[in-house]
């Protein structure tokens, strides 16, 4: 057995994007890059998935937007973002300075909006792929219908597919009875990979006032509480499609990331844990490397989908 100079091999390729390791930071939990750049060496990450971008600037929901619950967070930020033009002008030059694949998470309120924002990124230097948010439960219009209705999912994914050359990664909603069916729809529509899971619909009530804590009434649950739910959905999805799967939901450490890989994910994303400890993604990378060495594996690829059931 010959070992490459870098052992074990940590790199993976997803939708044609060569990543130096399998660990990304998830959309909405890492801003657009500069927010955490003082604390985390961005060059060490597998990729960054930036906070969701729409064609036009969007203000999001009223406050309160966030509440902590045992083992997680319920958020209803409402996808506040500066819009595609401002993001490209103000943040892309910063991101291009790094040796870091940039995956732009995009969303819209109609098929036309999705298509328009996707087209806008097609010629932007430094963008490696588009993650298509078809599943955010926070927006009253749009989002929820695309991610939970097979016909709408097909329409939006295939429409965007026709109008962009960039690799396309639909982010699947867990708020469906059969997630692998949506993964197959994505694959059939020409998606290059799928990512999952998005947040789980949730609600918190203040019993003294009998009012919902969030101004938006409902929000999305993320964090450690959703991890086993996500592992199960990633396992089902990986068994259903040939395109790569990116697993996320409640990763705090290397073991929880490895569960996704063993379940069938080619890469993972760290989300809410960035808030708890901004260095989580780096700890996960080191922990995966240590695990591969301990198990005498040459490459992380040897581990993907190896769960014994």
């Amino acid at each position: 057995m010959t070992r490459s100079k870098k052992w074990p091999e940590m790199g993976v390729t997803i939708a044609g994007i060569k990543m130096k390791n399998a660990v990304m930071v998830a959309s909405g939990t890492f801003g657009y890059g500069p927010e955490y750049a003082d604390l985390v060496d961005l060059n060490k990450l597998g990729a960054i998935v930036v906070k969701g971008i729409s064609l036009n600037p969007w203000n999001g929901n009223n406050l309160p937007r966030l509440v902590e619950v045992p083992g997680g967070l319920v958020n209803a930020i409402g996808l506040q973002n500066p819009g595609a033009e401002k993001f490209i002008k103000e943040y892309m030059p910063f991101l291009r300075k790094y040796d870091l694949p940039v995956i732009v998470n995009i969303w819209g309120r109609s098929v036309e909006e999705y298509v328009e924002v996707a087209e806008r990124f097609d010629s932007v230097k430094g963008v490696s792929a588009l993650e298509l948010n078809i599943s955010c439960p926070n927006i009253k219009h749009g989002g929820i219908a695309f991610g939970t209705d097979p016909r709408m999912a097909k329409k939006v994914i295939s429409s965007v597919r026709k109008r962009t050359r960039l690799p396309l990664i639909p982010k699947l909603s867990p708020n469906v009875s059969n997630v692998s069916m949506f993964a197959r729809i994505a694959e059939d529509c020409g998606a290059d990979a799928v990512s999952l899971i998005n947040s789980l619909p949730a609600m918190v009530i203040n019993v003294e006032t009998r009012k919902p804590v969030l101004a938006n009434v409902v929000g999305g649950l993320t964090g450690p509480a959703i991890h086993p739910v996500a592992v199960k959905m990633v396992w089902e999805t990986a068994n259903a499609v040939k395109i790569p799967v990116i697993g996320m939901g409640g990763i705090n450490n290397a073991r929880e990331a490895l569960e996704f890989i063993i379940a069938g994910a080619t890469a993972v994303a760290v989300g809410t844990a960035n808030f708890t400890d901004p260095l989580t993604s780096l700890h996960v990378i080191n922990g995966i490397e240590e695990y591969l060495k301990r198990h005498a594996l040459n490459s992380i690829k040897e581990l993907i989908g190896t769960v014994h059931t």
Partner: protein
Amino acid sequence: MNMHQAEVVDHVEASGGYRILTVEVPSLAKTVKPGQFIHLRIPRMDGAVLRRPFSVYMAHGKEMAVLYKLVGRGTHSMKSIGKGEILSMIGPLGNGFPMLQSLKVPVLVAGGYGVAPLAFLASRIKKKGIVFIGGAKASDVLCVKDFKKLGWEVRIATDDGSAGEKGLVTKILDEWLSVLNPVELLEFFVCGPDGMLKAVAERAKRLDHTAWLSLDKHMGCGVGACLACVQKIKRNGVVSLLRVCREGPVFEASEIVWE
């Protein structure tokens, strides 16, 4: 902004329901400015995913302190923090108060534990000024000795009259303003509940003085990534949602668009 390992050197009760946590953290103590905050990971808080933000009360030499009120799960979990313990902190965060404009008299207005960053500010302002401190009762009036030691004039108001005058802090502020020489140039620095901030902002506007308000909004990440703590701010005629943790927590009163 950086991540720091801070060693607890002291953790005492300040008055009923308030505590002061002092840590040794040279890199942070040296750089933090009044009005800035730190994001603390509270140890032994089961199931917690968020850090908790605290404005800095004191920074001197290698040491830095925060003054906090026991209000929720986070602060109650903090009670068990002991001397010698190592805490994870991110900081310094936020913009902090600007430097006092020359020729102006600093007027500080505090509500409850909002006095903490103002006590830190007073310790860094060479000019002596006046501080108005409001609270529900005598035990909510904090840091009086700090200001007196610096030679500042201190005026107190409590809801129940158990310390200083009975009533709101804005009442004693109004009394002082009414007998003031109108040509006196004032600059307000304010920290406390929203209602108080708004009331002081109205007075500053009416009298054409600058007022700097430190906002307290529920935060998530503390560094500007999650957008949980945004505030409507009007700058150059444009209203936008700025992050209290990043562009704030201190804003000039006239910029704030109150809901």
